[in-house]
C-alpha cells in the first residue's frame, strides 16, 4: 500500500474495518500511557535544550559582543590617547559603537576597591573604553593598530571567559537534545513492543479475519490506525501536561544570568507541538513493521 493511501485511511478511517480491532484493553492503555509519559518527559528535555540554547546565545552575544580598551598613560596624555583610540575605533570594521566611560561609571566600577568617594583625579586610574562589536570584528588586527598609534592601550576582548562559558552552554544543550533523542527512541521501542503485544494478544482476531478472507492490508491497516491514534492521543496528553508543568515552574530569581528560566517563549511552543506528531509518526512506523511481521509469521 502506498503512503498516500495509508495517510488517507489514517485520517478518514473506515467504520467497518476499524471495528475489527478490540477497542481497548491493557495494551491499549499501555500505549497511550507510554506515549504520554515519554511526551511529558520530552517536554522537559526540550525545555532544557531550548533554555541552554538561549543561554549559549546570550553568553555568546554578551561576551563576544563587547570588549574593553584600557588606556594606561600619564594623566597629561590620557585625554589625547583616548581621543586617538576612539578615532581608530571609528574606522575599524566590526565595531558597532565605542565610547569612553564617564568618571561616574569608572568610580562605581572601582568602588569595591576604593570606596564610593574616591577622587579619580588623584589616582593614576586608566581610562576605559567600551567597545560593542558586530560581525567581522578582528581583535588581533585592532591590537596591532592600537600598539602602533596608542602606546598605552590594552585591548581586553573577554576571550578568556568566552571559550569555557560557551562550551558549558553547549554541553547543557547537548544534554537536552540527547535526552530528547533517548525519549523518542523509548517511545519507538515501547509503542512497537505494545503493538507487538497487542498483535500477539489478538492472534485469534487475525486468525478469524484470515478465515473469512481478509487481506493482510485490511488487517494491518486497522491495527496501524488504532495504534497511531493512540500514540497521538497519548502524546497530546503528555505534551499538554508537560507544558502546564513547565509553565508552572517557579520563575528563576532575577539577576541570575547563568541559569536561564526553563519556560518556553513564543515560537518554542510550536516546537512542542512536534512532540505528539513525533509520537504518532514513530507509532505508525513501528506498528506497520510489527503488523506486517506478525502477519507473515502467522501466515
Amino acid at each position: 500500500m502506498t503512503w498516500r493511501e495509508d495517510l488517507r485511511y489514517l485520517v478518514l478511517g473506515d467504520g467497518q474495518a476499524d471495528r475489527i480491532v478490540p477497542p481497548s484493553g491493557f495494551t491499549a492503555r499501555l500505549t497511550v500511557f507510554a506515549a504520554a509519559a515519554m511526551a511529558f518527559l520530552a517536554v522537559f528535555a526540550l525545555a532544557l535544550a531550548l533554555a541552554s540554547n538561549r543561554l549559549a546565545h546570550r553568553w555568546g552575544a554578551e561576551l563576544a559582543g563587547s570588549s574593553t580598551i584600557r588606556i594606561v598613560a600619564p594623566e597629561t596624555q590620557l585625554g589625547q590617547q583616548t581621543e586617538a583610540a576612539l578615532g581608530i575605533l571609528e574606522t575599524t570594521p566590526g565595531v558597532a559603537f565605542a565610547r569612553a566611560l564617564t568618571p561616574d561609571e569608572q568610580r562605581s566600577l572601582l568602588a569595591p576597591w576604593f570606596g564610593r568617594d574616591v577622587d579619580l583625579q588623584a589616582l593614576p586610574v586608566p581610562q576605559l573604553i567600551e567597545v560593542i562589536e558586530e560581525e567581522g570584528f578582528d581583535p588581533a588586527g585592532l591590537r596591532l593598530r592600537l600598539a602602533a598609534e596608542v602606546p598605552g592601550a590594552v585591548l581586553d576582548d573577554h576571550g578568556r571567559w568566552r571559550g569555557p562559558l560557551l562550551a558549558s552552554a553547549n554541553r547543557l544543550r547537548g544534554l537536552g537534545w540527547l535526552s530528547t533523542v533517548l525519549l523518542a527512541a523509548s517511545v519507538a521501542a515501547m509503542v512497537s513492543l505494545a503493538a507487538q503485544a497487542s498483535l500477539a494478544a489478538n492472534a485469534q482476531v487475525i486468525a478469524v479475519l484470515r478465515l473469512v478472507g481478509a487481506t493482510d492490508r485490511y488487517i494491518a491497516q486497522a491495527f496501524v490506525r488504532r495504534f497511531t491514534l493512540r500514540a497521538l492521543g497519548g502524546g497530546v496528553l503528555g505534551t499538554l501536561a508537560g507544558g502546564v508543568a513547565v509553565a508552572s515552574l517557579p520563575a528563576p530569581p532575577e539577576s541570575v544570568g547563568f541559569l536561564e528560566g526553563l519556560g518556553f517563549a513564543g515560537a518554542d511552543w510550536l516546537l512542542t507541538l512536534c512532540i505528539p506528531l513525533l509520537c504518532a509518526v514513530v507509532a505508525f512506523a513501528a506498528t506497520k513493521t510489527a503488523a506486517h511481521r506478525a502477519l507473515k509469521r502467522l501466515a
Partner: protein
Amino acid sequence: MLKALTALAYPRLCIETGRALGHKGAVTPGACVIELENVAYSYGDGALLTQVSLTLAPGSFHFLTGPSGAGKTTLLKLCYGALHPTTGNTLFFGEDVSRMSRDAVANLRRRVGVVHQDCSFLDHLSVADNIRLPLSVAGRQAEEAREDLAELMAWVGLTERAQALPPELSGGERQRAALARAVILSPDVLLADEPTGNVDWEMSQRLLRLLVELNRMGKTVLIATHDLSLIRAAKTQVQARVLRIVGGQVQQAGADL
C-alpha cells in the same frame, strides 16, 4: 418440514448473493473446485498424511471420517490453504495455491466457507456482527443483506442471541453461529469440521438440511464428522460420498456406512 425450509425462503439469500458474486465467483464447468494432488503432510515428526489425492467436483457432497487424531482437521486445513502440503499440490479452483500471493489466497477464501472445529470469533463484536463479518471483509454493505441475515439467524436458531457477545454463547450456539458465518457469503464450497459436535439431534438435522439445500443449489460440501448417524441421515437426502482417513491415506468407505 422440507417444504418449510423452502418456505422460510432461506435459499433466497444464497441465490441472490450467488448471483451478485457471479461475475467473479462462477465455477468453470468441469474444473474441480478443490483438488489435492498426491499430497503428503507432517507436523514435523512422523508423516501424518501420505499420498492423499482428493478432488471435490462442483456440486458434490462429501463426508470425511476417521478416528480421532487421524488427520481430518489437517486435511480440511490443506483444502483451504491454511496449511501447505509437504509434498504435492493443492489446487484452488484450478490454480496452484503455492504459486499464489497471500492476497490472492485471501480473495479466493471468500469463495470458501469454513466451519472450524474450535469455532473462534471476534469476541468484542456481537454475534450478528460476527456472522456479517465476511460481508464487510469482502467490502460489501451490510445493509443489503439485512433481511437475508435475519432469515439465516432464524434458521440456525440464534435470533434471540443476535446481540450477545460470542463468549456468552453456549457450545452449540457457537457452532451454529460459525456455520451461519460460513454460509453468509454463499460460497462455492463449504468445509465444515464437526459442525454438529455440540448440538442435539433435532438441531443437527436442521443444520444438515441447510447443507443439503446449499448442495442442491450447486455448492460443494465437505463435512468432517465422527457422527455416523448424521451420515446415515444425509444419505437419505443426498448422494454423498463418504471418505475415511486410515493410516494417512484417504479411502472411500464401504456401503455399510
